[in-house]
């Protein structure tokens, strides 16, 4: 599902989702921007209030629906705007890493780190090295075939979910 744009050179941009806490890392990414620290363009950022708001399921969902990599960044431990959100985040992400390998997703495609609002340079390094890592891994394998879900099947499931009670499959069951 990676970008089908004709403008993109083949094999260049991969789909990397970033979840950033508003206070430290989003600020750090802003600082990097203000300082014009050049970075690869693959990463797209979703802003959340705190790394503690990031449900591991968001990351799993992103990776299962076509993301080639997920990068999470929050405030440094002990420097959380919400006192301890990043500690919860850390525990959850460590669990997630175990879980990802069980589901067949390469845990290398997921990385979490801490970047403060003043660390523009660090943010540049984090983005660059993670993008390089994902490029080395290449595009993520589609979540079909082995699991028995091909695109047609996924579409059917999506249709069934969105149509809800009106769907024949529901009626049949009833």
């Amino acid at each position, binding site marked *: *599902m990676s*970008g*089908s*744009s*004709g*403008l*993109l050179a083949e094999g*260049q*941009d991969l*789909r990397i*989702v970033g979840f950033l806490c*508003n*206070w*430290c890392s*989003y*600020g750090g*990414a*802003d600082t*990097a*921007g*203000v300082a*014009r*620290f*050049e*970075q*690869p*363009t693959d990463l*797209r*950022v*979703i*802003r*959340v*209030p*705190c790394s*503690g*708001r*990031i*449900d*591991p399921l*968001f990351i799993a*969902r*992103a990776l299962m*629906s*076509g*993301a080639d990599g997920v990068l999470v960044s929050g*405030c440094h431990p002990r*420097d*959380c*705007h*919400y*006192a*301890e*959100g990043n500690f*919860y985040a850390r525990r*959850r992400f460590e669990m997630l890493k175990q879980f990802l390998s069980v589901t067949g997703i390469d845990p290398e495609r997921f990385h979490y780190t801490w970047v*403060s*609002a*003043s*660390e523009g340079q660090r943010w*540049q390094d984090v983005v660059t090295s993670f993008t390089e890592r994902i490029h080395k891994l290449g595009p993520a394998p589609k979540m079909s075939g082995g699991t028995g879900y091909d695109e047609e099947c996924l579409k059917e499931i999506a249709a069934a979910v969105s149509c809800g009670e009106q769907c024949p499959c529901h009626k049949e069951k009833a």
Partner: protein
Amino acid sequence: MRIGVFVCHCGSNIAATVDCPAVAEQAKKLQDVVFTTDTMYTCSEPGQNEIIEAIKEHKLDGVVVASCSPRMHEATFRRALERAGLNRYMLEMANIREHVSWIGKNKERNTVKAFELVSIAVAKLRNDQPLYANKFDVTKRVLVIGGGVAGIQAALDCADAGYQVVMVEREQSIGGKMAKIDKTFPTVDCSSCILGPKMVDVSQHENITLYAMSEVEKIEGYVGNFDVQVRKKATYVNWDNCTGCGACMEKCPSKKNVDKFNEGISTCTSINIPFPQAIPKKAAINPEGCLMLQKGKCGVCAKICPTKCIDFEQKDEIVTEKVGAVIAATGYDMFDHSVYKQYGAGQYPDVITSLQYERLMNASGPTGGHIKRPSDGKEPKKVVFVQCVGSRDPAVGRPYCSGFCCMYTAKQAILTKDHIPDSDSYVFYMDIRSPGKGYDEFTRRAQEQYGVQYLRGRVSMIYPKGDRYIVRGSDTLAGTQVEVEADLVVLAVGAESAKNAPALAEKMRISYDSYGFFMEAHPKLKPVETNTAGVYLAGSCLGPRDIPTSVGQGSAAAAKVMTLFSKDKLESDPQVSRVNTSRCVGCMKCAATCPFGAIKEVTDRAGNVKAEVIETVCQGCGICTVTCPQGAIQLQHFTDNQILAEVNALCQAQVDF
């Protein structure tokens, strides 16, 4: 839903590397988008008016602005929405400047990325709900941490405006670094003559409660309602009764304590008042030097104290204060020059720091204002000043300019000539940085009228020769090596963050940079605010500042507090968690994880246990939302559905330009 998308050129900031019209054109294809346009400066008055016009003309329910960081202008555009009659939370921003145009050079790829960020924003906006703020009371008292000149100014301004001030100072007396200085540049004013009256004002002001020898232990709560715990350290003297007569100091047999106020160039008694103008003028015992506290033998001070206020049993005491705002003015520490091994690493008695020299020149200092060499008490005839010791030197982890050292060195060179007319002064400098009012004239006066020799170059080595010192350095203007024989060497040490600054920042939940200086909310436009509502900053805790800037920032922080206190009620941020009671099973896992205690247990009419969010206490972090096994508690404006919509938009985006 009817959505409008506004793509900002930001002059050429965005337009130079993003095809803004193409992004706007593409955005038309997104679901629910009925209007798109690209504007030169969306944040300008015509830009905001365009949004307002479009909302009215196209009956928009929500707006996406693709421009700079939401940390920059989210509030601006929310106000614009409100002016157009929309709920302010029906706005999403796509950050296509800091996160796209400024970090990527490839226009095609930038354009695709910018469009995808717009599609994320549209996807989220489609799930946005109008939110409404609650009102809550403000405690109109302010905590000022730090009793230096910045803190003093902030406290006096707030107190004069009629608000109660709690000032917490770590040391025995307020006054900070300025109280140790002899004269100020460039006016050569007597420092204690201009600071002293302000210190007295603090002690006598009916609105100011001063806790000296105290530290902030804990800060809890939120803007308008902070609970602060202050640790009053044991002084072993009952300060309610101590008159500061000094009789105890005269009789104390233990006289070999390091005199912190005099920067260690002299000694003091174990029971001590740091300097004659100290505020509060109360004695305190240094427990490490006190014979009674260490060995249980002595107690002379207790015997002779006329008010019987010595109390060897005293313990630290915790007091709790309620305040509505916090001003941190915790200042800086002098750089520890002992890392410079080539300068003697603090071993040569006559190689001293600038602040020690300041104490030598000060009439209330240990030498009564006569400049004497610490080693033998002789008057130095040749004084060498070495600048940038711990400034502009990445080798010692201090790449920044400390700002005020050029000026205080010029001042000290001038004063040296005043004190010892037949002396010569040399200054090794890298550049002279004197940008303030009257500053450059002052450094020129040092060179031209006072004949101070300025040599441009770093000092490579200082070593003793007989009872004098050889200062070896380069003169980069002449292109030669130079050696100067000196009686006294003064190192112009730079500033670094106060030792406990990061720990305090964590207590206040504000950011600090890699050097430990506190971070302002915006370096240009919010210089004394932090990203934590109700916490303000002043002075050198932000980075090295001279006295006028510190005083200015003290007043600025006070003005911000007064603005906050001008309202009787504050509006709470409605981006808080909300419980869906039909889903909640009352497991209370959310309450257990909430760092703010913002979730309480309630019983509904059927007698079932449910969670309830205390809206004014909730800070909107969303830890509970992730914790809830039922998905029953959702952080408004950042719900699961909204974030998943963003993820979907991103992972399923099909871009065809």
